[in-house]
Structure formats: structure tokens, C-alpha cells
């Protein structure tokens, strides 16, 4: 996992609640056995019509939103299927930070495992930012060590993230390697069972 400390990027607004992982990456793309290359299929049916042509009205396709790396979304982002292909697709497309009022539990974990920072933020703040982002004018600096988001040319806001998640993201640590250091504990548990 790639470490992430301070990230600056353009933010894009998707003002919808309950964006489920079936929309983020539809099932026909889950047959691949690789971890990479899913970005081209991100939000596939929202992004492309039945002939594979871009739908001009969809947020990701608007010229002013190209190159965005921060996603602002509605509540319960990432609900539904546990498919980790969802964060793989978001990351591969170029998203490193997702800001929403709430996240589904499994998606939240899956994002963290892949170096995407899921940030829970008050809905009123998000709505305000969305209005700016919709004009393609929202640039944010996300400072993970300081737990602060700075709007370029505007306010600075604090965000919460559990300390152990933050530590892993900042260092890009591999969970399994860390756990394997606890081999003695695991073996002892198994022996006592």
C-alpha cells in the first residue's frame, strides 16, 4: 500500500446518497483475477451509455472535473457488496480521498487497506463544498498527520480518523506483516482452544 500523508487535489461532487458498490464497479468486471486496471470501469453504467459512449451529464465526464482526486459524496457511501474491486477502481481512476457524511462499514475498511482516505464530515460542510465543486473550482489540501483539510483560498477544517488507521495510512504499512509478529499470541490462543 502506498503511504499517504498530505494530498492536494481537485474535488468533485457526487450529490447522491447510498452510492452502492454495484454502481462503483458493476459485476461484469469482477471476473478479472488481477487487482489492477479497474479504473476504466469505475461507475461504468453511470459513466457510459449502452454503446460505450460517455454520458456528458455524468459528474466524472464533465470537462471541469477531469483530473479530480478527491470525491465528495452523500451519506452511506459504499453500501452493499463487500467487493474490494470498488476501492481498487476508485484508486486506479485516481481518487485518493473520499469525503462523505457516512460510509458503509465494509467499504470504509476496504478503502483504508488500499491507501484511500475515507473522511467523515458534517453534511452541511459537504453541501457547501459541493456547490463550489460543481463549478469545478474546489481544490483541497488534505493533511493526514494534522487531520486538517484546507480549502485553497478558504477555510481550514479539522477531521477525525482513528489513530491506528491514520498511522497505517501515513506509513503505508502491511497489515499481515504486522499481525505475523504476533505469531506467539496466535499460537497460544490455538493451543488453549
Amino acid at each position, binding site marked *: 500500500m502506498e503511504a499517504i500523508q498530505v494530498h492536494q487535489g481537485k474535488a468533485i461532487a457526487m*450529490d*447522491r*446518497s*447510498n452510492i*452502492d458498490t*454495484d*454502481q462503483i464497479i*458493476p*459485476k*461484469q468486471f*469482477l*471476473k*478479472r*483475477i*488481477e*487487482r489492477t486496471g479497474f479504473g476504466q470501469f469505475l461507475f461504468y*453504467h453511470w459513466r457510459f451509455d*449502452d454503446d460505450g459512449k460517455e454520458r456528458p451529464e455524468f459528474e466524472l465526464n464533465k470537462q471541469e472535473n477531469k483530473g479530480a482526486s478527491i470525491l465528495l459524496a*452523500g*451519506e*452511506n457511501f459504499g*453500501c*452493499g*457488496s*463487500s*467487493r*474490494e474491486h470498488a*476501492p481498487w477502481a476508485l484508486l486506479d481512476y485516481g481518487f485518493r480521498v473520499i469525503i462523505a457524511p*457516512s460510509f*458503509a*462499514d*465494509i467499504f470504509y*475498511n*476496504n478503502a483504508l*487497506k*488500499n491507501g484511500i482516505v475515507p473522511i467523515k464530515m458534517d453534511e452541511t460542510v459537504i453541501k457547501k463544498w459541493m456547490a463550489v465543486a460543481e463549478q469545478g473550482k474546489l481544490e483541497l489540501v488534505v493533511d493526514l498527520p494534522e487531520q486538517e483539510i484546507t480549502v485553497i483560498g478558504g477555510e481550514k477544517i479539522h477531521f477525525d480518523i*482513528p*489513530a*491506528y488507521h491514520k498511522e497505517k495510512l501515513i506509513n503505508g504499512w502491511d*497489515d*499481515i506483516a504486522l*499481525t*505475523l509478529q*504476533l505469531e506467539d*499470541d*496466535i499460537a497460544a*490462543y*490455538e493451543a488453549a482452544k
Partner: protein
Amino acid sequence: MEKAKTIIDKIWEKHVVHREENKPDLLYIDLHLVHEVTSPQAFEGLRLNNRKVRRPDLTFATVDHNVPTKNRDVIKDAVSKKQMEALKTNCRDFGITLADMFHPNQGIVHVIGPELGLTQPGKTIVCGDSHTSTHGAFGALAFGIGTSEVEHVLATQTLWQERPKTLNVKVEGDLGPGVTAKDLILAIISKFGVKFGTGYVMEYTGKAIRSLTMEERMTVCNMSIEAGARAGLISPDQTTVDYLKGRANVPQADAFEKAAKSWLALATDEGAAYDKTVTIHADEVEPQVSWGTNPGMCAPINGSTPTIADSDHPEDLQRALAYMDLQENQPITSIPIDHVFIGSCTNSRLSDLRKASQIVVGKKVKEGVRAIVVPGSFGVKMQAEKEGIDTIFKDAGFEWREAGCSMCLAMNDDVVPPGGRCASTSNRNFEGRQGNGARTHLVSPEMAAAAAIEGHFVDVRTYANHQSTSAAF
């Protein structure tokens, strides 16, 4: 006296391998179920790092998501085939038991776990699949995980887990005649919303829950994730013990009696406290039909789609109705369907098929409707055929298939075409779930069966007595 505990606390405490302040707990995993779609990248990760599977004996694999449900000898989709073959190779290389496509234990992972007695009270169970919550019906702590976590469990047999909050979903009273476990869980989700369980493990309690069969309990726990809860469970009781007795992977004879005693002791203690409690009255639940694009968007059969202006999120509602090609205030019984799917880990067990078949016996599927029945496992299929259930369905014009996930997510050839409208016994009505542009209405098996005959939704509570209501349309 010891403090009263919930079953969730009891299971949790028994599984902590390592605990540090301000960190999640490291939990031991007793059973890891694996399927073809969410595992290849995990095995690849093990290989890249020269790691092995720590406990192949606690790991069990099957193919379900991708498998064809007919003409199994030829898999036309090369990518699907590759994925299934990858699982075979991975299981062979890492020493994991696999119920492959032609194996008598093959089936949807959440159907075969309980069927084989792998699922037992008190276990921690994970699978790279969000409907792992199904196994909670047995009083197990069972939840879905992502592929990185699958890899973590394969390598370490443990998971880092934050202790969840506890939520008591209390179901008082009794379900009325003709009202099913599916209607109950849909009503719960539409009453409290698709995220009321986020951050919680739910325990379903109350009189109505106690009187459910194990298969009905599985239907309820299955959809916990649609309420946002990674896990939902029910304290074990005599119904649980009776179901498990004699199954392949449970202890036998005296050892079973001993196990049963320890299982029953797991039940939530009288007076145990939960972080939150919600209550619903089973008597008020009517047969449900989902009308929108998430499982919280449901109405009773005699109700209508909602009024847009009444909603807190009118844009979301408008988008859902537009996708579903429905009007606001549209009566549910006026919605015509052209596809029917009876199957999925929610409703593909023997009792589901038995009940649905009773609705269609001696009747014919409405012209223009394509109806398929996909048993949840090879075992369910065999038993149903022994009972002649397949014949009832086939005589009525249903297709009778091999076991798998099938039209629940339409990864194989079982797809609802664009613009098609399906009465489905599955658990998700998300946009495109059953096929690009397809519209899904979630219902119970009985409601799906009746809709197949009539070509639109009808109230099963009064339906059995009627020959046909289609004259009115």
C-alpha cells in the same frame, strides 16, 4: 453475580487473541468460507509474499457467483472460466477443501455452510461476501470482509476488528398468516432505513423471532447488511440445536449433547444491555414489495409508491422512481412484471421452494413472463426433486436450474434484459443488479410465485383462494 451479557459480548470475549489499548482487537476466526470472485487476488498476495494458508482445515471453498445454472459442461465465458479455474488451482496449492461445480456439496456459500453443519453457534465466521451475516441465524458472529482481509485471514486466521456496538432489533407479537420472514426483514429495513445498523452488530430478539424456523432465521439475518450491519444474529435455542443435530460437520452422539449445552449457554442473558434498541410489531407487517433502488424502498402489497414531496431526499427518490420507470403514488398491485427469479442466499432453501411451489401447483406462468427457480445448493435441488417440487414448477412453466447465485447478481448468463422487470426473492434491488437497465422488485418466494402466475403483484394472503385475478388487468 456476573454481569448480564449479550451473545455478541460472549462470542467476542472468547475470540480475542491480542488486545492493546486504543487499537482494534485481534480476533480469532473459526471458519473462513471462500468463493471464486473475491479470493483470487488474496491468494496472489500470499504467493507474492511467500506466505501459506495458516489453517486450511478451517477454510472451505466453493464456486457459486459465476457458475452456469444450465449446460455446465461448457462454460462459454472465458474470463469466468479462468476465475473458477484459479480457485481450483489455489485450493489445490494451499490445501483447501473445495466443493467444485460438480461436487455434491456445491452451492451458494451461505446455503451450504449451514447445510453441512460448518456453521455453528459461537463461531466467528467470515467470507469475502457481505451476506455472510446469514450465518448469524445460528448465533455465530458472521460478517463479510474485503479481499485484503481475506488474505489476512488466510495468512493469520485472525482479523483486526473494532468492537462493534450492539443493537437489539426486537420483534414483538406474531407474524400474520401468509406473512413471511422476508416480509419481516424488508419491513424492518424500510422502517429504520438502510444504514441504521452501520457500526453495530444486530441481535434479533422477541417472540416472532423465536417462532421462526432456522431457514426463516437465515432469511432475516441474511439481509442485516442491507440495514448497514455487518453482522446480525439470533441467540441459539432448541430450534437451532434440532437443526444441527446429525449434520456432517457437527459433533456426534455424546459430544453433540455437550456441544448443544455450550451453544445454549451463549444466548443473551436476561437483562443484558444493548447500545441501542429498536422495536417493531410483527402483527403490523404485511407482504412487502420493493419499488425502488435500495432495499429500504419498500411498500406493503396493498400500498403505493411514495409521494416525492413527502421525502427528505426528493432527488434520491425521483432518481429511483425514474430508474424503475414508476410514478409516485402508483399502486403496487398495478406493477406488471416480465421476469421472476426464485433463488439467492436469501430465499433458495428447501422450505422456500416448497412454499413457492404450493402457490403455483396446477397453475401456469403468465404468458410473456420468464420464470426461473434456482435452488441454493445441490443438496436442496436433490431433495426438492425427491419431493417432486421440480415437477410442480416445470409443469407450471418455470425453468428449473442447477445451484448458484444466478440472477441475484447476473454474473453468469442469467440476466434480466435492459428495461426488464423482475419479481425477485434476492436481497438487492440496486440499479443494474440483475442486468444493466434491469428493474428489481424484492419479494418473498410466495409473492414471487404468485406474480409469475398473474404477471403482476398480488396479495398472497388472499391469493390462494382465487383462481385468477388477471381478468382485472
